[in-house]
């Protein structure tokens, strides 16, 4: 019995370390500024935060699975209140477990484990009955495959007959009549392989009549023999070891069903929270259109960086881009011209799409990426230039072990920690190798030498890739930035001058100005 609200076929593995599922998760969170997004989804709930982090970062690559989630999400948006009640039922069930914590469930002794597990199971059976009643009442309000299957499974698996059988066994498991065990002889001839048997404890008729060969001998431990009583208790415990394990594991399985239900619903509740907040800030919200990894697609209208939209009060400018069939997008142009914002908005939208969520755009249509990677300039690392290049290349090498065909990697001002000629050469070699390995590259850069080598008259190396899109951050009128990118080839200068002027208002212009023009 599964919840299956995130996938028609598999469970999301919440127990695996995020580190192993998405080794670059820390870089993604930091570079794409995902904490703002996740905090909004969580609305102060730590559990929601953790679940949303995991689901957002564990991208799905099957477009059908993405639309499966999109339909469940649509149900959640429309029936937010009822979904909230179902979530609460799961939360309450898990609270029962904590209340019953003291019932020896966590003891080392099978006898205590068994009685604790039976107590747990009795409480869980009550909740299962409630769950079935809930499904019965609300199932017709939900249209998605995910919810339909969930409610149908609950009604068929938890029928009356089954629940009665369970209750009957829970009585038997109290073992009012003592234990019957079978055993075999071990290497030192003492008993091994104790197995709990179910059988009557009545004496046999032959013995009552004292006829035939003896097939039965017995003894009784004297009252004073404490060691004997203890040894006997251990034998009983060994006998019920497996049944105690089965009962305790069953209690855990049912509990984990409720945990899974709670976690999967938590993700959708987080999405509903985020959607409400984005709409409050007049940010467009739409369900994206995912397509297979090939042909490459990336087309959007009014694409926003959701983190920026949530953080700033002013108007956030969106971008319109058509980058279908382009394995390489190079973004150049003015400082503070919205290059990094655009790169982050694409990264965020791709993650949001591939977790089944809406995106912050009027329209977003893209092929799925088999792994998203970010290689951003790190502010915190203000060591010597040489050390910084070393660090950047270390990160690049680390990604090289994880990148696969159809991955997407976003570079932001990478390999600029050396002079332009050398930095460009490094960047060129890396990008060429990535493109040949079918990795999609979006590269924000100041390295004109590097960027221009991919233009029509540049030399991107022996195999100049087809399908390069150049985007440029434009210098607005009077130095005011429109934060809007246009399709245009790189220019040999950057726009540090007017950023400088805006920030420092022209004072100390002499020396600093000269330096920033260099």
């Amino acid at each position, binding site marked *: *019995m599964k919840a299956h609200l995130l996938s028609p076929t598999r*469970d999301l593995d919440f*127990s695996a370390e995020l580190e192993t599922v998405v080794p670059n998760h820390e870089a993604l969170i930091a570079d794409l500024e995902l904490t703002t997004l996740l905090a909004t989804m969580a609305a102060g709930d730590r559990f929601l935060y953790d679940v949303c982090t995991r689901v957002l970062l564990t991208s799905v690559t099957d477009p059908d699975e993405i639309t499966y989630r999109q339909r469940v999400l649509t149900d959640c948006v429309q029936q937010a209140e009822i979904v909230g009640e179902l979530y609460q039922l799961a939360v309450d069930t898990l609270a029962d477990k904590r209340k019953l914590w003291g019932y020896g469930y966590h003891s080392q*002794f*099978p006898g205590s484990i068994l009685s604790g597990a039976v107590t747990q199971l009795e409480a869980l059976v009550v909740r299962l009955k409630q769950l079935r009643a809930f499904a019965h009442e609300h199932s017709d309000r939900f249209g998605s495959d995910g919810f339909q299957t969930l409610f149908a499974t609950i009604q068929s698996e938890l029928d009356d007959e089954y629940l009665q*059988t*369970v209750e009957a*066994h829970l009585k038997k498991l109290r073992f009012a009549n*003592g*234990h*019957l*065990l*079978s055993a*075999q*002889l*071990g290497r030192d*001839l*003492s*008993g091994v392989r104790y*197995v*709990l048997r*179910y059988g009557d*404890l009545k004496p046999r008729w032959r013995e009552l009549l004292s006829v035939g060969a*003896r097939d039965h*001998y*017995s*003894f009784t*431990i004297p009252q004073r023999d404490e*060691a004997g*009583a203890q040894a006997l208790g*251990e*034998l009983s415990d*060994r*006998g019920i*070891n*497996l*049944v*105690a394990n*089965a*009962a*305790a594991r*069953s209690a*855990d399985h049912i509990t984990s*069903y409720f945990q*899974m239900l709670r976690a999967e619903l938590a993700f959708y509740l987080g999405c509903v929270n985020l959607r409400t907040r984005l709409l409050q800030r007049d940010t467009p919200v739409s369900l994206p259109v995912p397509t297979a990894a090939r042909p490459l697609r990336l087309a959007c209208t009014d694409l926003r960086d959701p983190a920026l939209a949530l953080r700033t009060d002013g108007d956030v400018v969106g971008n319109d881009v058509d980058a279908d069939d382009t394995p390489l997008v190079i973004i150049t142009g003015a400082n503070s011209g919205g290059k990094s914002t655009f790169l982050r908005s694409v990264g965020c939208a791709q993650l949001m799409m591939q977790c089944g969520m809406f995106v912050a755009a009027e329209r977003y249509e893209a092929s799925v990426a088999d792994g998203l990677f970010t290689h951003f300039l790190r502010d915190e690392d203000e060591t010597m230039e040489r050390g910084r290049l*070393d660090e950047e*290349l*270390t990160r690049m*090498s680390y990604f*090289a072990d994880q990148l696969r065909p159809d991955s997407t990697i976003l570079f932001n001002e990478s390999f600029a920690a*050396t002079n332009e000629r*050398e930095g460009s050469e*490094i960047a060129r*070699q*890396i990008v*060429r190798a990535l493109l*040949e*390995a*079918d*990795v999609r590259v979006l590269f924000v850069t100041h390295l004109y030498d590097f960027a221009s080598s991919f233009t029509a008259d540049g030399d991107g190396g022996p195999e100049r890739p087809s399908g390069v899109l150049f985007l440029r951050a434009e210098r607005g009128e009077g130095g005011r930035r429109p934060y809007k990118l246009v399709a245009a080839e790189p220019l040999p200068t950057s726009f540090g001058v007017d950023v400088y002027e805006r920030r420092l208002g022209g004072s100390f212009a002499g020396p600093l100005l000269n330096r920033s023009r260099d």
Partner: protein
Amino acid sequence: MRSSVEPGEADGREHDRRSDAHEHRPTAPDAPAFVSLLAERVADDADAGEPLDPGCAFDLRLDQVVEAIVRGHEESDYLRTLLYRPVAELDAIRYRQEVFSDLEDERLLAGAAKFAEQMREVREHLSAIEKMHHPLQRQGWFLDAAAIYCHALRSLAETLDAAPVRSRAMTAFRAFLSGYLASEQFTTLEADTSARKQRLGQIVYDVRIRGSHVDVSRYDDEPDYSVEVEALFERFAQGEVRDYRRGYRGEPGFNHVTAQILELVARLFPEPFAELAAYCEVHRQFLDETVRRFERELDFYLSYLAFAAPLRSTGLRLCLPEVSDSKQVNAVDTFDLALANKLVGEGKPVVVNDFHLSGPERIIVVSGPNQGGKTTFARTFGQLHHLAALGCPVPGSSASLFLCDRIYTHFEREEDLGDLRGKLESDLVRIDQLLRVATARSIVILNEIFTSTTIDDARFLGEKVMAKLIELDLLGVFVTFIDELASAGEQVVSMLSKVVPEDPAQRTFKVQRAPADGLAYALAVAAKHNVTYERLQARLTRGSTR
């Protein structure tokens, strides 16, 4: 010689029955009888050379290597003695190399290791019985020990028959073993053991526990209730949950309650228990002395290979060297075994080096920056020659080494630094002694000597020592900061510890004859991280569909 180690004669009382069996053992006419896995002619190591000097073992870190090899092994003293004692003859070295060569076969090595493990278990069983009181318990353990023993020998014989055995030692042992396994004594033991195990293994009984009352009866096909309970909740099974089974250490074993139960079981099933008692009487002594000796000597090989295995699994190579009287030595991809053992344990990479001496070349002078692997290189040279003289595989993908009479080392000792004048004196005294006893067949390894005096003095003394080394025509490594020594003559080869020219602080631990060439800094760094075009191209897998 041969007759003195014929199995069965060592202890007449214990081996009477078996000696009878041996008389009829078929032996291939050409195959010499098995004597020892370590040497062809004698069972003990009388032919062996002098043990390695402890100071030398310390300088070369061979003490660490030896300790790492013997750690956890039952007879560590015995192994330690073997590992410090080189064999003086080329043929004796080859005798052992042949065994190592046989053990390169993975199935044979696994089979031999399994055999050693099982024999250890047999001996542990037999010594455990000494401490047991209940006769039924003793009988059970004894039967089990014999079962393991029979099984161990059978599977060893199968392994030996299937493996490409070529060594003199293994071939002789294989012949011995096939005779022993065919002997009546062994076949009877094996048949009896298996029959007893089978009868007792078939017994299944019931224990009913209700309060303090215990009832023992024959098992009557009652259903397994755990299975029923598991099936009941199967529909909820998802993912992994905690295992609540209590991890009972071993079985309940013996106490007065289980003993009472067992006695009742023996009354329910009287026949198999009577047969067991008779069996124990008949087979009281079943362990063969030759088998025992083989197992003990086998551990020399197994312990060395077990030590080498983790190193090999990281891609490092060990090989059987060609050992000869030629001073034209060489080794490829070699490394310091003690350092490699430490680094591999820490998950760090190991740098390998090559060396070769040809024509008149005898002495390698190693100079260059500190912390660059000079001392490591010097140790490697010494270790290789000691290990080769044991008949063991040595670090490297190939090696030709010299059969030396002795290895002499003089390494800078930290504890001596207090008194500089005293140190120079003691340096001189030790070098003088060393040069007096060294012969043309010796290997001398000097590491940073004369550091306690002025550069002029050091150069003067160093040149004197070098002249003497050249005169002796011995093989040696001389680690020194005195550059001039590197050009003392055609007998001397200069090697440098290499650095990355752009980043002199970085240690490569590479020691080479030729200096390194420079690369442009940025691309060199990119190459260091394996992210140049060529390296990335090799690392990234291209999409197969396009």
